[in-house]
């Protein structure tokens, strides 16, 4: 309870600091626009911004959703048997370390600056993160669970559907990493060719040194990403009502009691 109030204090402190620095003209207006000017920019541009926000949010969430599905499928296949692992591990582990942003030129070369190119990029990078997470979660489930399910007559697919997949839900913190990643890649991909989006808005504003609009776009992306993270967490928590509090704390779904 108290910790939450400290959080509010920190936020207010930062806000006051921002107002003070920009209000006292400690830096040029251009370098740090005041909150009032940022709100002013929203006031002027709101019809565009509503559209841009929807476009960016939609792109990131669609890519994230598709990537999670892909990752879930890959993770399950990799854990299914040695053969699939042999095939897929190499692919996943060689795609994953390459920053997706570095592949943007190729994506544009192949598919043009299209929505398809952007979604493909987001999907692939989220997919690899989720695949590794799902694979590790499945293979570290207590082996007694697998043995008990076998003894009780569950088929291979029933074992996955009814035992392994439900049990790994609290451990899927990779979903949260993937969601954050999807926003990062979305904005980068938008820089390179999506006029009507928050990324595009930043590019447009950059040309006219309209820093308050850039700041505004940054804030909106931040809010979107944060809201997505909170939503994922609350869904995971809802699906993990069976888990002990210590398990939830272990995977960051519940606050652990502090030592003092």
């Amino acid at each position: 309870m108290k910790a939450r109030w400290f959080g509010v204090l920190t936020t207010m402190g930062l806000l006051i600091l921002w107002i003070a620095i920009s209000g006292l003209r400690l830096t040029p207006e251009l370098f740090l626009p005041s909150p009032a000017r940022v709100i002013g920019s929203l006031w002027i541009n709101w019809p565009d911004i509503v559209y841009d926000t929807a476009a960016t949010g939609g792109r990131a969430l669609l890519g994230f959703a598709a990537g999670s599905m892909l990752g879930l499928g890959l993770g399950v296949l990799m854990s299914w048997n040695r053969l699939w692992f042999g095939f897929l591990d190499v692919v996943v582990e060689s795609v994953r370390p390459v920053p997706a942003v570095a592949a943007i030129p190729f994506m544009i070369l192949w598919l043009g600056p299209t929505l398809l190119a952007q979604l493909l990029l987001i999907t692939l990078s989220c997919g690899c993160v989720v695949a590794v997470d799902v694979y590790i979660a499945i293979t570290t489930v207590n082996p007694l669970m697998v043995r008990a399910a076998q003894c009780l007559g569950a088929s291979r697919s029933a074992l996955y559907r009814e035992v392994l997949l439900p049990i790994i839900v609290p451990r899927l913190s990779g979903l949260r990493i993937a969601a954050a990643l999807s926003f990062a890649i979305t904005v980068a991909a938008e820089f390179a060719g999506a006029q009507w989006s928050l990324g595009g808005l930043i590019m447009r504003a950059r040309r006219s040194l309209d820093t308050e609009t850039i700041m505004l776009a940054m804030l909106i992306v931040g809010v979107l990403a944060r809201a997505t993270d909170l939503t994922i967490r609350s869904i995971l928590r809802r699906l993990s009502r069976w888990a002990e509090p210590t398990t939830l704390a272990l995977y960051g779904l519940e606050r652990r009691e502090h030592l003092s």
Partner: protein
Amino acid sequence: MQLRISHLSKSFQANAILSDVSFETNDTEFVAIVGPSGCGKTTMLSIIAGFENATSGSVSLDGRLLSSAGSDRLMIFQDSALFPHLTTRENIEFGLKHKGMTSHHRRQLACSALDAVGLGPFLHYFPFQLSGGMRKLVEIVRATILTNPAPLLLCDEALGQLDALTRAHTQDVIQRLWMESPRTVLWVTHDLEEACYCADRIIVMSPRPGTVTAELTIPFPRPRDSMLRTSVELQVLRRRLFDLLDAAEPDESERRPA
């Protein structure tokens, strides 16, 4: 079900854990297995269940050679193996579901089985909300609720962590369940009184590498009740069992790690 173990041996790397174990069980026989810690009891049950391979020897059930795990054998492990994401009732229904029983029918069966062992009020609890003793009881019900055909039951120190009273109570529940739907049971235990009280026959194993050193037939008629626990006859049997185990134990000076 007739289980036949012949010349079963198992080593991990160079360590012999089981050496030339042979025994048989009759249909619907309750066989207890006792032996010193580390003699390979868990290993033996895992091999019978099909989770591990023997180095040599064979296991057959009703004449069929066994190699991999199957739903004709059911192991209750030393550690809890309840599904953490399923409630008590759903855990118990799991095996019935995969036998193809309809949801209405299996729900009825699960509820009455739970009521019969006094777990009725804990139907909707998740495993982490139950006590250790209750968890074991749920696991036992989850196994014994499967009948027609009842799988071979392999129990690895199922009651080892319970207090004396709960353990005695659970033994009575097990006897009742077993008499209601008889099945072949291999019951590994450290508790000699439990072995004498529950089993039709006791197999005594030597220290590692484990092998069968003696067999005791328990003559007491069923149903057995708690009067038997303190009876002279049972205590005499228990003493014999103790001596058999003690005789097989090497002197302190001869003991060295495997």
